């Protein structure tokens, strides 16, 4: 799949933003007044910034409001609905903390729940696609949720929780990579089933339908070399898990090292998300002999 920067930026940043909102909704840290204001500004910048960047890849962003209509069937629509509810509830909850120094517990819990649902619905947009066997797995939502919560915990300064969650994200990520590598082969979809010509012999793509490129090739036939992908995987896991874990374990109470851990984690999350898209094999590539 073509790794579109707007979508990578969106999934990483809104994931972390909603992750922080989950922790704030739970009262972790239990901040009020100006402190709470700072936390909420960071959370909203990430979450809303991510959502806004996601509209950049739309052909007609001016019609984006129509996307709230089909929540009964579409995960993309559900994501939009959940995000709006989460942001509105958390805004009220945040106002309570900042201006009235009161924590409306129920409101915080509802906001945290919808923030969690937003991340889950985002992940289901990808996990639902049978056409991309690497994504079509319960591990995809687990990966999105663990990254969102780990980033949120780091931002919320929940050191112990963050350590556990970063470790969890790393385990989920490694398993997703391992299972993902065999996902297309195990899906049962290949050039023989794609053309129905398998019973006659061994099928090979002989000539594509056109000499130039097209939308399908640009969008779905992106290929990363195995060597590069291995290197990138190591870089990603070092940045998002190993370095932050070392920093947190070595000096759990240093603010500067925590910031460094967060920056490293975000860098690794970007590399991981880039790979998530770039390594995903869409079955339409079979017709072009690209798999």
């Amino acid at each position, binding site marked *: 799949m073509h790794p579109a920067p707007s979508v990578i930026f969106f999934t990483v940043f809104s994931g972390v933003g909603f992750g922080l909102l989950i922790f704030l909704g739970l009262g972790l840290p239990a901040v009020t007044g100006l402190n709470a204001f700072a936390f909420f500004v960071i959370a909203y910048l990430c979450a809303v910034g991510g959502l806004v960047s996601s509209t950049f890849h739309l052909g007609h962003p001016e019609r984006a409001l129509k996307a709230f209509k089909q929540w009964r069937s579409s995960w993309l629509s559900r994501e939009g609905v959940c995000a709006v509810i989460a942001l509105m509830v958390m805004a009220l909850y945040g106002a309570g903390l900042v201006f009235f120094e009161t924590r409306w517990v129920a409101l915080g819990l509802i906001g945290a729940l919808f923030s969690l649902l937003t991340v889950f619905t985002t992940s289901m*947009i990808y996990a639902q696609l049978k056409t991309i066997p690497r994504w079509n797995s319960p591990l995809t939502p687990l990966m999105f949720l663990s990254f969102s919560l780990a980033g949120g915990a780091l931002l919320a300064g929940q050191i112990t929780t963050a350590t556990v969650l970063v470790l969890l994200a790393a385990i989920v990520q490694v398993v997703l990579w391992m299972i993902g590598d065999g996902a297309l082969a195990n899906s049962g979809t290949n050039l023989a089933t794609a053309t129905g010509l398998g019973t006659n012999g061994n099928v090979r793509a002989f000539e594509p339908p056109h000499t130039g490129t*097209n939308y399908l090739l640009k969008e779905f036939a992106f290929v990363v070399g195995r060597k590069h992908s291995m290197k990138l995987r190591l870089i990603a896991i070092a940045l998002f898990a190993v370095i932050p874990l070392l920093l947190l374990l070595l000096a759990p109470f240093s603010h500067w090292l925590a910031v460094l851990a967060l920056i490293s984690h975000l860098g690794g999350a970007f590399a991981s998300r880039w790979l998530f898209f770039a390594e995903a094999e869409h079955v339409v590539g079979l017709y072009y002999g690209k798999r």
Partner: protein
Amino acid sequence: MTTLPTSTTKKLGLVIDLDTCVGCHACVISCKGWNTENYGAPLADTDAYGSDPSGTFLNRVHSFEVQPEQGTAQLVHFPKSCLHCEDAPCVTVCPTGASYKRVEDGIVLVNESDCIGCGLCAWACPYGAREMDAVEKVMKKCTLCVDRIYNENLPEEDREPACVRTCPAGARHFGNFSDPESNVSKLTAERGGIDLMPEQGTKPVNKYLPPRPKDTLSEGAGDIDILAPYLEPVAQETKGFLGWLDKTLENL
């Protein structure tokens, strides 16, 4: 609503005969022509005369080589367009309801004024039947020429999809699959029509007729074709002046 109808009154679709298709791409061109000049946003070409030409097409013809364990390889031309699936994954993922499947005839369409161009339907389609138009920024797909098949301004013989109407080899057939007596249902039954990627669970309406085994020319080399007598030379011996000239020149 982008939920799928539980059943459709008719199931309109195509039968594509891989045995007959000669790979001339006439269906590609007639499709592009009709769908650029008629209903909906035109199918754009970008950099058409430059170094990196690209364009939107609703129908494309691939070519595949099939190598059996023994014998010669076979070249199969493979036209591919929207299969108007009964369980169309492209419809249910649409967040706006722009993608829908019609209850009356099962055609899968895009309401272009509701399409936000997110591209998710193209991601959900295993066949590559949807393409985002680079100029109009909306999703384009085969409409089964919905503006031809019911168009009473056209002569009756033209009320079928442009690709079917134009195919010089008769490799494309249009009809109603919910009627077991229709041309397409009979063809599918007789020739063992198949689904593409059945494991994806899309239940495509369009069917593909597999190519028949290749002729074994070498085996019949000793036989004389039944048409051979008609191909024998008619003139046995030359007569008259030319005959005399021929003989004289031969004897020189």
